[in-house]
């Protein structure tokens, strides 16, 4: 099963769609978790997910906003979507009835 950070990464990439790349995924994760996301953790996790076939990455063209440097684009595969769904359903199942889920 996916790890917590792997789920955050896949979910952010799925939400961003065609605009999913290193910096944008990092912004999404930081906005959701309200914590700093390190580039080291992001890129090593991307490699791990790609080796498992859960995402596909490729280098895009350079852009002037990035000092003329290329982006590492990310696309979630069908296998990645299935893994993320499984993680989400597991969290929902285990969280049923707990105090922070019911708001007590």
């Amino acid at each position: 099963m996916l790890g917590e950070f792997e789920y955050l990464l896949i979910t952010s990439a799925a939400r961003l769609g065609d605009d999913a790349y290193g910096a944008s995924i990092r912004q999404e994760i930081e906005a959701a978790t309200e914590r700093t996301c390190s580039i080291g953790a992001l890129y090593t996790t991307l490699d791990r997910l790609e080796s498992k076939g859960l995402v596909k990455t490729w280098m895009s063209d350079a852009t002037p906003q990035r000092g003329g440097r290329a982006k590492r684009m990310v696309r979630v595969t069908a296998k990645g979507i299935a893994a993320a769904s499984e993680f989400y359903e597991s969290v929902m199942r285990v969280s049923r009835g707990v105090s922070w889920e019911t708001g007590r």
Partner: protein
Amino acid sequence: MNRMFAWAAEQIARLLEPAEREAALGDLAESHESGVRASCHLLGLVARRQAELWKDWHPWLALIGIVAIVGLMLFKYARFVSTAAELPAWIISNYRDIDPSILEQNGMTLTLLIPKLLCFTLLLGCWSWTAGFVLAKLSGGTIWLNGSLLLLNWVFLSAWTQTGSLTAFLPLLPPVCWGIRHATRHEVLQLSRAILLAGTIVSLTVVTIWLGGIWRGGPWGMWLIQLYVLLSWPAVYLLGVSIRRPPTVRR
């Protein structure tokens, strides 16, 4: 100050693969990270990448086999050669005051000592070059760390053995650096060159054992033979790899 850290970030990023360097520096530029934070992010990424490389056994063999064992043996042999050079150097500097017949009677003529010293020095050079080449091949991406550790090992040994100088290992540096440089530019050493190198090392080893009287045995002789065996494993490894993996033909 921020410019300095931005420059530092660029230098740290050079330790990454080119594509990842592009992506990471671009991401940091897009998110307008300060030089300090960018440097910290990049250091974290470099540390993670380096840690991944150590999951393989090759860098560990380089660390233990070359940095620790061969590094120590090379240092000891360099000291041995340095000691062997003292007598000819003394004879040359005091030649006018020495009776040549006394030198001849004791077999200490320059015509005998200089070739012996030359063989010792050539053998040290061959071993050092081979050690540098194999260190780079085994270390791969960890060459910076393993190379630094080898240098630190020699600095420590110089200080610990009280050689009188912290730079006793300096003669080892040029051949080792040359071997490392050659390894980073060539995938595999050509078989003919590997055989030539191995043959040279074996020939020089036999000659130095004979010239040094090491074949007579005794504790000193046995120690030197053990040292020769330990110093020769990188050449055996290099020959084995050259036989198993001939260089690819470029079209």
